[in-house]
């Protein structure tokens, strides 16, 4: 049972109609249970008028499974999946702004870019913006390299994730089969945490 109740990062993918207020409806499902969203990305999907959310939370699978069902219950949600980090390819993008003078004077920019898989997005007289993409450690790494040279501004995107084992949403859209049920009768530790089941 530990597998089901141990907390880890989960990537929740939600396909929705493009509708005002839906972000709020989805967010409420997390806040109501006092669950923090680690990362949230939403953007149009490859299908016209359908949006895709990528949500990252750290929770047990048992809780995540229930959350996804609550999300899928929303009228404008077409489909909701959850995956562990092993089941997805994921990336975050980061932008770094540094002073052009400082950076040009003190480092070999070319080497810095090569070693960090980064590229320069903008080079102006007063500042330069680099971009890199990768996992958290990779984007963090470039921060620590640039910090001594006066990093002026840094921003990182939410996580985007592609599901490894996926036939694509187009096919899944037509398939509304449910998850297989658990084999054994097990107790629900999460909901039993409080001894006081009855509250006034």
């Amino acid at each position: 049972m530990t597998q089901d109740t141990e907390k880890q990062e989960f990537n929740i993918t939600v396909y929705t109609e493009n509708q005002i207020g839906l972000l709020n409806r989805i967010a409420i499902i997390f806040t109501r249970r006092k669950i923090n969203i680690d990362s949230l990305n939403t953007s149009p999907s490859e299908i016209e008028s359908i949006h895709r959310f990528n949500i990252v939370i750290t929770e047990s699978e048992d809780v995540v499974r229930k959350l996804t069902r609550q999300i899928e219950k929303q009228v404008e949600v077409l489909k909701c999946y959850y995956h562990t980090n092993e089941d997805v390819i994921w990336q975050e993008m980061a932008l770094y702004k540094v002073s052009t003078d400082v950076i040009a004077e003190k480092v070999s920019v070319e080497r810095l870019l090569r070693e960090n898989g980064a590229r320069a997005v903008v080079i102006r007289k007063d500042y330069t913006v680099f971009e890199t993409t990768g996992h958290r450690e990779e984007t963090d790494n470039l921060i620590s390299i640039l910090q001594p040279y006066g990093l002026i501004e840094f921003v990182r995107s939410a996580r985007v994730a592609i599901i490894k084992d996926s036939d694509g949403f187009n096919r899944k859209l037509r398939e509304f089969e449910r998850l297989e049920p658990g084999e054994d009768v097990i107790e629900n530790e999460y909901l039993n945490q409080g001894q006081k089941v009855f509250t006034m």
Partner: protein
Amino acid sequence: MEAIQEVLTETKPTETIVEVSGSVALLEALIVEGVDTIFGYPGGAIMPIYDALFDYNDKLNHILVRHEQGGIHAGQGYARTSGKVGVVFATSGPGATNLVTGLADAQIDSTPLVCITGQVFAHLLGTDAFQETDVINITTPVTKWNYQVTDANEIPEVIAKAFYIAKSGRPGPVLIDITKNAQIQLFNYKGYTPCNHIRSYRPKPIVRPQYIQEAAALINQAKKPFILFGQGVILGSAEQEFKTFVEKSGIPAAWTVLGAGAIPTDHPLNVGMLGMHGNYGPNVLTNECDVLIAIGMRFDDRVTGRLDKYAKQAKVVHLDIDPAEIDKNVKSTVPVWGDCKETLPLLTALVDEKQHTEWLAKFNDYTRQEVEQVIEKELNPTTAEMTMGEVIKQLNEITKGEAVIVTDVGQHQMVACRYAQFNNTRSNVTSGGLGTMGFALPAAIGAKFGAQDRTVVAIIGDGGFQMTCQELGTIMQSGIDVKIIILNNRFLGMVRQWQELFNSRRYSFVDIQSPDFVALAAAYRIPGKVIDDRKDLPSALNEMLSNKGSFLLEVMVTKENNVFPMVPQGCSVSEIRLK
């Protein structure tokens, strides 16, 4: 006007295009959806709709309530007895926020409602305009769906969606907020098309025959199978299918508060009520059965008590239309997703015809113990003062189980649910999930509109009555016939019971004083009577029931009486206490 109206009420889009206001389009939509009664309260931001309503008096019956909370509870009562969608109007700001309790109540009890709120002009949105409230955001967590209309062109489609969402799948409340400009705006109206499909919305999960087979196999092998049924049976109009299933399989069946009445109370396989104040046998035997068949119920904590000690020995078959309910609280062995109107007949076809005589006898043994230790004392008391139970018993005798019983929240609610007799479905109207005091009086008004040829009796505590007693005004003005019984124990009884049992009798602020209820009713021209002697009970009940029109009967009952059995805080259902 008449000619236009004829064109308008066409259900299909017509070639004829007429120019109408958003308000007229809304009312036309309601008529096509079969709405006959609206509960509401006007105000500045919904004035255009009310103005249009003036011309629709012959088709749409508007009931002016005394508070928007009363309006929405009336809508709930109407929906629960009629099986139709309840419709509620309110103005912006304070009008809309007064709906919130009712929305939360309807959401948790799966009651289909369409609430229409007025909103400030679209160009004023977000400016803290007079009576502007962010109604969409306030109501998001307590609605199945909500939407703000800012352009009249959207109205026909949005209202069609609202009705479809409110009543399909697992029903629930929908709120449509319409800005004042959209209500006034003229647009080319092309008729109204009811909605029956939304791309992203799957009201019913696909029924999987494999699970039906697995469920039937489990049930057929079971030595001690046990059925728990909830409101899903009623919401799915599957009472007949359910009865056939129970009778063929011969399995004892117990109900949740909202499932009461889905099969008649005195059906031989109906073994009683589940949960905190439910019956002894069903609670204890939940932890003894080998297969638990849950139908249209959601394992609420008031039903299960401690989950880690709940039916651990049993294999669980769970039939529900809402996939999110399956495995939410109790892990199922076989999930049967689907509308029980469809899944039950499939299951019935595969289950063996059986009688579980010995197993059923165990329930009867527990019933005997409960009768001896609890029920006899409650229904046939020897004390000087009256009990709540004996009032319900007398009421049963006179109404013969044919009345709609609407209850408020507290001890009287549990007593009424335990002892009221229901021969028919849609007869028990109560606030189950939210436990909203003040629910009963307005809900009873709505219940009567939803079931006009039935007797509607509201049973209310002295505390709860004072939360919405202004709805006596609605009764007076609409002339509706609602029988009101106030069970007055001069306490906020249920809280007092908890304080007695768990806080060593520290009766902190539960001693509530009441006005002269009969005089209060009289002020609204509603006849009434107060009794405190047992010998007056039958005649007073008869007088109330035979009175033409509403009647208020106040019955003075024992001050400190407790509802038993009870599953105490933090206990498992098998630890249910008889005293």
